[in-house]
C-alpha cells in the first residue's frame, strides 16, 4: 500500500529583530525541501502544518510558494500560554486528521524543546520515531534514514507510518511566479473544535506546567575593558575566575 501524504510540522519563529512577522526557520525549510524531494519520487501530497498565532500565516504561505501542496494553521486565542504538553496534544490531533504516511520535523535548537515535541507527537500517535536524520528515503512502505550519531553514521528504518526529525538547514528563494501563485492559495484554518479539543484541554488550563518570573541574573555587572592592555587585563580576569582551568 503506497502512502499518499507527508506532513511537515513547522514552528514559525520571530524574525531577527522581532519587528517582522514570524517566518520559517532554515531548519523547517530543510524539512519542507526533504518532503518535496520525496514527492518528486513518488507523488505524495505535502502538507505543512503549524500551531501558531494568526501572524504566522505568511510563513505558511511561503511554504506553499516553496512547493507545498497545502498549509494548515491552528490558531486560537485559547491556545495562549500552552506548554509542550498542550502543543504536542494539538499537533498530534492535527497530524492524525490528515492520516499521513510520514511526519517530518526540522531540528530546532536543543533549548527550544524541539526534541521533546517530536518525541511527544510520535508517542501520542504510537508511531516509531527516528531523529537526527541526515536524509530520509521511502521504499516499499518503509522509511530509511541515514543518521549522524555523534561521530558515526548509521542506517535505521521503520515501517510507515512514522515520524522523522531531520537535521540540517537550508534556505531557498521561491520563484516570483510561485510567490504570486501562493497568494491565491488559502492557508487552511483549523479550529479547536475541528480537533475535538475543548478550551480546557489547551492553553494554561490544559498545560502541565506553570512558571513565573523571579529576580536574579547577570544584568548590570558587566566589566568593560578598553585600551592597549585590554587583552592582558582580560587574561588576568580569566585566570582569576578560573575560567581557563580544564
Amino acid at each position, binding site marked *: 500500500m503506497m502512502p499518499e501524504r507527508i506532513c511537515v510540522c513547522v514552528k514559525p519563529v520571530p524574525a531577527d529583530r522581532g519587528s517582522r512577522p514570524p517566518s520559517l526557520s532554515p531548519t523547517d525549510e530543510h524539512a519542507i525541501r526533504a518532503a518535496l524531494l520525496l514527492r518528486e519520487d513518488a507523488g505524495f501530497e505535502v502538507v505543512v502544518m503549524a500551531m501558531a498565532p494568526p501572524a504566522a500565516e505568511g510563513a505558511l504561505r511561503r511554504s506553499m510558494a516553496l512547493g507545498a501542496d497545502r498549509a494548515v494553521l491552528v490558531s486560537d486565542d485559547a491556545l495562549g500560554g500552552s506548554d509542550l*504538553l498542550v502543543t504536542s496534544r494539538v499537533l498530534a490531533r492535527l497530524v492524525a486528521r490528515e492520516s499521513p504516511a510520514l511526519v517530518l520535523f526540522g531540528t530546532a535548537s536543543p533549548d527550544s524543546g524541539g526534541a521533546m515535541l517530536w518525541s*511527544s507527537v510520535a508517542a501520542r500517535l504510537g508511531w516509531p520515531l527516528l531523529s537526527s536524520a541526515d536524509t530520509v528515503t521511502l521504499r516499499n512502505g518503509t522509511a530509511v534514514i541515514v543518521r549522524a550519531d555523534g*561521530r558515526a553514521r*548509521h542506517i535505521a528504518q521503520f515501517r510507515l507510518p512514522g515520524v522523522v526529525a531531520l537535521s540540517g538547514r537550508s534556505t531557498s528563494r521561491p520563484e516570483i511566479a510561485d510567490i504570486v501563485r501562493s497568494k491565491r492559495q488559502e492557508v487552511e484554518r483549523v479550529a479547536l473544535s475541528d480537533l475535538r479539543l475543548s478550551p480546557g484541554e489547551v492553553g494554561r488550563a490544559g498545560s502541565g506546567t506553570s512558571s513565573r518570573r523571579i529576580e536574579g541574573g547577570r544584568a548590570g555587572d558587566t566589566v568593560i575593558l578598553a585600551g592597549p592592555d585590554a587583552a592582558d587585563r582580560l587574561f588576568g580576569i580569566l585566570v582569576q575566575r578560573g575560567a581557563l582551568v580544564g
Partner: protein
Amino acid sequence: MPRTDSSVFLSNGEHLLADVPLVYVELNGGKPTRGSLGVLSKVREIYGFAAALLCTPEWRDHTELLCAAGATEMYYCDEVWPDDEPESLQIDALVALLTEYDFSTVLFGDSRLTCELAGAVSAIFESGVNWRLEDIVLRDGELRGTRRSGVIGERMECTWTTVRKVAVMRSVNLPLRRFEGGATAIRIKAASHARPRPQFMGPVSEPAASARELASADIVVAGGRGMRDQSTLRLLEELAQVVDGAVGVSMPIVDRGWYPYANQVGSASEAVSPRLYIACGISGSVQHLAGMRDSQLIVAVNTDEVAPIMGLCDVGVVGDLHEIVPRLIELIGSSRAGPSTDVRPRQ
C-alpha cells in the same frame, strides 16, 4: 506499590509512603554521563533518596558509581534487542517502569536523547515537563525548578500542575557529590514494543575524526561579522586550541560559506552553555544571543561598545579582535607552557 525490595536499606518503613524521584541514567560510550550523575546527586541531596534507571546488560559495572553519586534504589533493564534501534528500547524500559511503579517525579540530564525520552514520558503519562532547569528545590514538599527566562537578568520559577512531573536539567554544571551506602537493584522488563520500534541497520561508514563537539565543549570561541576575512577563523581555531575548546560561528559566517553549519551557534541551530564563551566580532543578534546566553562566563570582543552583546556579557573588551585575540593566545600559550614561564606585560 510493589517496592518492597527497598526495605533492605530503608529500615524506618517510611519509604512506602515516600515519593522516590527517578533519575534516568544516560550512557555515553558505555559509561553513565556526567550530567546524569549530577542530577542523581542533586536529587539525593534534596530528597535524601533517589532511584536510578539504567538500561544496559553491563549494569553491574556501574553500581558503585551510581551509589556514590546518590542512588538509593537502582532499576535496571539488561535486555538486548540487536535488531532494534537502541534508543527505542530506552523508551520502552522507562514506560514499563513508570507503568509498574509509582514514580511521580522523573528527572533527566540534558541531551537530545533525554529530551526525546522526556517528551515521550510527558505525552504517554500526560505529565507536565519543564526543561533547561538550572536548579531544583523542595519547598513545602513541592518540587520547584528555576531556569533563565528569555529576558536578560531574569529567571523563571517553574512548577508542575500534573500529578507526575518530568524535569530535564541543565546538568553540565551540576556538582557531583559523594554518598555512602548501597542500593537495592531491581530488574525490570521493557514493555515489549509499546509502539513499533525502528530497526537498526548498522553503520554506513567508519566513525570520522571530527572537531570537538560544540554542544559539549567547556569553552567556546566564537566569531562573527567582525572578522576581517576567512583567514581570521584560523586565529579563532588557534585560540580554541590553546584553551582546549571548540569554535563556534554566527549565522552570517555560515551563510557566507566560511565555516560549516555544524559550528553555528544560535536559536536556529546549536545552543550552547559552556563554562566560558568568548564572542569575537559578534554584535549579538537576538538569535545568536538565544543560543549562548546560558554560558557561565561570557566575554565579548568588539569594536562597537554599544553592540547588543555588550549588554549581556560579563566582560566586554572594546577593541579589534585581530589585535586582542593574538595577544590572548600568546598569554595563554605562555602560561600553559609551564609555571616557570614568565609572561611579560606588553610594552
